[in-house]
Structure formats: structure tokens, C-alpha cells
């Protein structure tokens, strides 16, 4: 309970409907986690919680540390300092118990190519307690791989492998799903399907889902909350709607002389990033500032044809946040 409250305090948000549910179980607690590899701090004091029924998006440019965080979460790599608790059990000291609640895909779900999909699932089923044959069949049905499940994985398409990866992590009915870029390499239909699956699992089975992704527009559609990580630091955690909208909105003002309008705005609001197009200016403003702005336009004799609110996409917002808070992101890709 307490760490959950801490999060909201940190983000300084007002009480909204999702926060009232905070007394629901927190399933994953990431507490001040740091990872140092060969003297380089790759993850720097990252903390966040994920609750039941929530889809948490983990967003960041290449090399930000998403995969590294997920590796620590599932115990593949050690934690330099801090701790990760899964339903109260530490992944460090109580690995077996903690990890038994997790189903995960880390980067690509690599399977044994010389086995059939079904044999792969049998293999993983033997490693968790109480996974029956019926459960395997049911999972195969759920992810829609029934037709090809007895073929060798070697013959699968990328999308089918992703599905098998998903089946593998659902076998033991975990309460937490951790998926590193689950939509990687999928076509739009596949992406949509995964998205619907995840939403369904979170809603109907009350699971906590953590997804990382590059596809920002995807996150927007499937996540409840977003954490932005850059250069190993978690720089923002926000509810999706708050995140996309922020407190300010961007307005487009259609005018007869955009350059004159820009000069005028610069003199009044020197801080604001103002963009000019052929016949409009764009500027971020709070709602209450609109009448004042219009007054200024009228005073300087700029003709206004329209004032429109521009809804920001997550992508705009993401680039804005990462550029503003952390400088330009590294254009680095995994060398694997």
C-alpha cells in the first residue's frame, strides 16, 4: 500500500478514479533499483509499482534500459542495489516463489526450433507446478495456434513464434505478465490481436501486465499507465490520459499573417515554443489563457479565422518529454 501512495505523491497528481483503486493489491514493486555493469550505471534508481488489472507501458528510446530492467525483474541478471518484490517476495532472496507468479518474454521469444510448438510447451509445462495437458490445449486455443501446434517451430513465421511465446508465458496462469516488445515484427492485425489479448487478460483475469515497446501509438491504445525511461533513469510515470494531454494543450490559431503573429507572441510569451505554418501558429496554452491571447491578437490587428485545440499523440508527447528532460536520445540499437 505504502509504496503505491509514494508513487502518486512523487508524480504530484490529483486524485483521479484510478488512484482510488490504489488500495487494491500492488503486484510488482520495483524499489530504487540500480544496475551497474563494468562500472557503467545502466539503470539508475528506478522505482515504480504495478497493480492488479493494470497494463503498464515501459517506454524509452533504444538503449534506455527497458530490457535491462525487465531482465532484473525476472531474475536473469542480478540487481546491484535496491530490490524487486513480486507479490511481496523478493526476486533476489526468494527467487522461486517470486518468479512463479511471472510469465515473461524477454526480447524475442526464442524456442527450440527442432521441437514442435507443442513439445516446446510441454517442456515449459514440466518446469512449473500443476500445468495439465488440458491447460496446454486451452492456452493453444486461446492464442490461436491450434492448426500448427504440432509442426516444428523451425517452420513458424515470426508472428506464430510471438504467439507461441505468449502461450509459453500463460501456461502456469501467472498473475503478472512481462513482455518486452511483444509486437515486434507483427503485422497490424497481429499487433491488434496482441493488444486485445493483453487488455482482456488485464481486465478479465485481473493480471498485471508490463509491456515495453517502441510502437508509441500502440502504448497509447493498450496501456493504463506509462513510465518513460531514458539513459537508465525513470523520468516520468503518468496515467495515460494525463500523459497525453498534460496540463497544457496545444492550440492552432489560423491567422492572416503568421509571421506577425509569431513576433507578437514572442514578445509577450518569450518562453513558449511557437511553431509557424503557412497560415497558422501553434502554441501550448492552458485553457484559461485563451481569451487573453485572443485579446492580444485583436490589439495588434492580426485577423483570426479559427482557434482549434490540437490533440497530441503519445508520440509527440514522448519525443517532447525525452528531449526536454534528457537531451537527445541515443540512436543505439542492441548489438545482438
Amino acid at each position, binding site marked *: 500500500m505504502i509504496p503505491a501512495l509514494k508513487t502518486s505523491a512523487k508524480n504530484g497528481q490529483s486524485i483521479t478514479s484510478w488512484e482510488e483503486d490504489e488500495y487494491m493489491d500492488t503486484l510488482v514493486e520495483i524499489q530504487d533499483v540500480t544496475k551497474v555493469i563494468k562500472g557503467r550505471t545502466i539503470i539508475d534508481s528506478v522505482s515504480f509499482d504495478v497493480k492488479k488489472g493494470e497494463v503498464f507501458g515501459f517506454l524509452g528510446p533504444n538503449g534506455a534500459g527497458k530490457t535491462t530492467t525487465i531482465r532484473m525483474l525476472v531474475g536473469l541478471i542480478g540487481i546491484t542495489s535496491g530490490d524487486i518484490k513480486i507479490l511481496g517476495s523478493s526476486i533476489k532472496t526468494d527467487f522461486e516463489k517470486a518468479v512463479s507468479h511471472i510469465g515473461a518474454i524477454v526480447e524475442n521469444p*526464442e524456442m527450440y526450433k527442432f521441437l514442435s510448438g507443442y513439445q516446446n510447451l510441454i517442456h515449459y509445462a514440466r518446469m512449473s507446478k500443476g500445468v495439465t495437458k488440458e491447460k496446454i490445449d486451452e492456452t493453444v486455443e486461446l492464442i490461436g495456434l491450434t492448426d500448427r501446434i504440432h509442426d516444428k517451430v523451425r517452420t513458424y513465421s515470426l508472428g506464430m513464434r510471438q504467439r507461441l511465446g505468449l502461450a509459453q508465458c500463460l501456461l502456469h496462469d501467472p498473475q503478472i505478465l512481462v513482455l518486452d516488445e511483444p509486437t515486434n515484427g507483427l503485422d497490424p492485425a497481429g499487433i491488434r490481436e496482441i493488444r486485445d489479448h493483453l487488455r482482456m487478460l488485464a481486465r478479465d483475469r485481473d493480471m498485471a501486465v508490463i509491456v515495453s515497446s517502441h510502437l508509441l501509438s500502440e502504448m497509447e491504445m493498450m496501456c493504463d499507465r506509462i513510465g518513460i525511461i531514458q539513459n537508465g533513469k525513470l523520468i516520468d510515470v503518468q496515467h495515460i490520459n494525463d500523459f497525453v494531454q498534460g496540463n497544457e494543450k496545444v492550440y492552432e490559431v489560423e491567422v492572416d499573417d503568421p509571421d506577425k503573429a509569431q513576433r507578437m507572441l514572442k514578445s509577450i510569451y518569450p518562453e513558449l515554443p511557437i511553431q509557424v505554418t503557412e497560415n497558422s501558429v501553434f502554441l501550448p496554452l492552458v485553457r484559461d489563457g485563451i481569451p487573453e491571447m485572443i485579446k492580444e491578437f485583436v490589439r495588434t490587428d492580426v485577423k483570426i479565422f479559427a482557434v482549434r485545440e490540437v490533440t497530441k499523440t503519445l508520440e509527440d508527447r514522448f519525443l517532447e518529454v525525452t528531449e526536454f528532460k534528457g537531451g537527445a536520445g541515443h540512436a543505439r540499437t542492441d548489438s545482438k
Partner: protein
Amino acid sequence: MPGLIQNEWMKIFRRPGTYVMIGLLLIMTTVAGAFIKYQESGGTVPDNTEWKRGLQTQNESYQKQLEEMGEMVPRDMKEQYQREIALNKYRIQHDISPNEEYSIWGFVSDTSQLIEFAGLFTIIIAGGIVASEFTWGTIKLLLIRPIKRVKILGAKYITVILFGLMLLAVLFGYSALLGGLLFGFPEKAIPYLYYYNGTVQEQSMGLHLIAYYGLKSINMLMLATMAFMISAVFRNSSLAIGLSLFLMFMGGQVTRLIAMKYDWAKYSLFANTDLLQYYEGVPMVQGMTLGFSIMNILIYFLLFQVLAFYVFNKRDVSA
């Protein structure tokens, strides 16, 4: 644990390479059988009823050589001669002819040379069983199960040992079958004679061969354990297999060379893995005993295991 071993077994036997190994072993045994069968002197007994006299003269000549050379005689030659003399005397006293008919036992004993190949295949499996998971990328999904890494590695090691035992059983069983078919059983049971600690003792042939297989496999077991360790520590199957095979072919020779000059060669693994040297030959370095060798083997075994388990347990998996 049984489930884990079952998993590893499945991963070995769902790959065609495994069947090639078993097939090769069977083919080599068959070829050896055919070769011996159709060799001219193959199945016939040397026609020599005067064998007692022969052994007598042999002993006399050994004795003479030893006396002539006196202090000059090399240690291993002396021990070799003493052993021969003792065995010959025993044969004459107990009326056990050295001219046994070539039978199933002779064949099984001959094919024990092929244990080296069983060892080679076991090393290939041992070298790949951990490293392959890293190259396939499957290690990630393997290690996020609610099972301690120690158990996963333990199951893998046990699987390697089971695989080695299976190859030995296949080799022994098939050799016995083929030997029985091609050469038949001897008319009367001939005991096997061995010389240990200055006395000659008798042992039944079947028991002797099983012990013989067991002792000959120790070298292979240790090399497979080493390959397994390298596989777990360096995650590199080529290194594990390459180095172990190199040592399998060269380790004994190199140790023998060192042993000619230096005493410390007796601490080398390869001076100790051949326990047959205490029954059928001469220890590589003077003063080595069976207990010393067993101790050495155990220490190396523990060293390999501790290294493998320690590193595998601590390792950050970012494959």
C-alpha cells in the same frame, strides 16, 4: 527433477545428430566384428599343445634378462616382467592355457576400444548442453521458471551422465550380442587372471569385462565433466568440445612425457584416470597408488563441479 531430466533427454533425442552418433557406434562395432570374423587367424585357436613348455622358456628368458641387466633395468620394464612371470607361473600351476578360443568375451574385450568413441560423443553432448541454450537464446525462457539454477544445471549434468551410460550399455550390449552370434560362447568358462599387489587372482570373465568397461570409462567421464564445466563457464560449445577432445587425445601422451622427467606429473588428471594401470600395467609415476589416483580424480571432479555451478549460478544472463 525427473521432469527436468526428461526435458533434457527430449532435447537430445529430438535432434538427428544423436542418432548419427548411436548409428556410428553400431556400425563401428559391426565392422570390427566382420573384420575379425573374416581375418584368417580370426576364430581359430593357435595349435599349440606344448604351451606349458613355451611359458616356461618365456619365464626363463625374462629371468635371465632381469639378472643380466641387474640395477640397469628400467623400473617399468622390471615390473612388467615380474607381472608376466607371475601370470605364467600361475597358468602352469593351475593348468589354464593362454590359448583360449576366440569367443564372445574376446570380442567384447576388443570392442572396448570403442569406448573412446562413446566418450567422444558424450563429450560432444556435454559441451553443448549448456552452451547451446545460450546460442539458441533459449536460456532466457529456461531460467525464468520457478526452479533454482542449481537444479537446472544439476539435471543437465545427470542427463550427460545418463547419456554416456546409455552409449556404454549400447556398446556393451551390441558387442555381446554380435560376439555371441559371430563367435559363440566358450565351451568351458575361462577365468580372467589379473596381477595386483604381487599376487595373481582369478575373476569371472563377465564380471571382469563389466569392471573393465567401468574403469575404462573413468577417463571419459572426467573429460565429459570437464567439457560440461567449460560449457557452463564459457558458454562456448566449440571451446568445450575442442579442448576436451584435444586433451582426450593428447593429455595422456603429454603427461607421460612430463612423467619421464618430473615427479609432479602424478598430480595431472591424465596420470590418474587410467585405473587399469594398477591391474594390467605399471603406474605412470613410481609410488602412485590406487588410493592416490581415486583421491586425485575426486578432487578434479569437485573442482570442475564447483566451478561450473558457481559461475552458472552467479552469471548475468544477457544472451
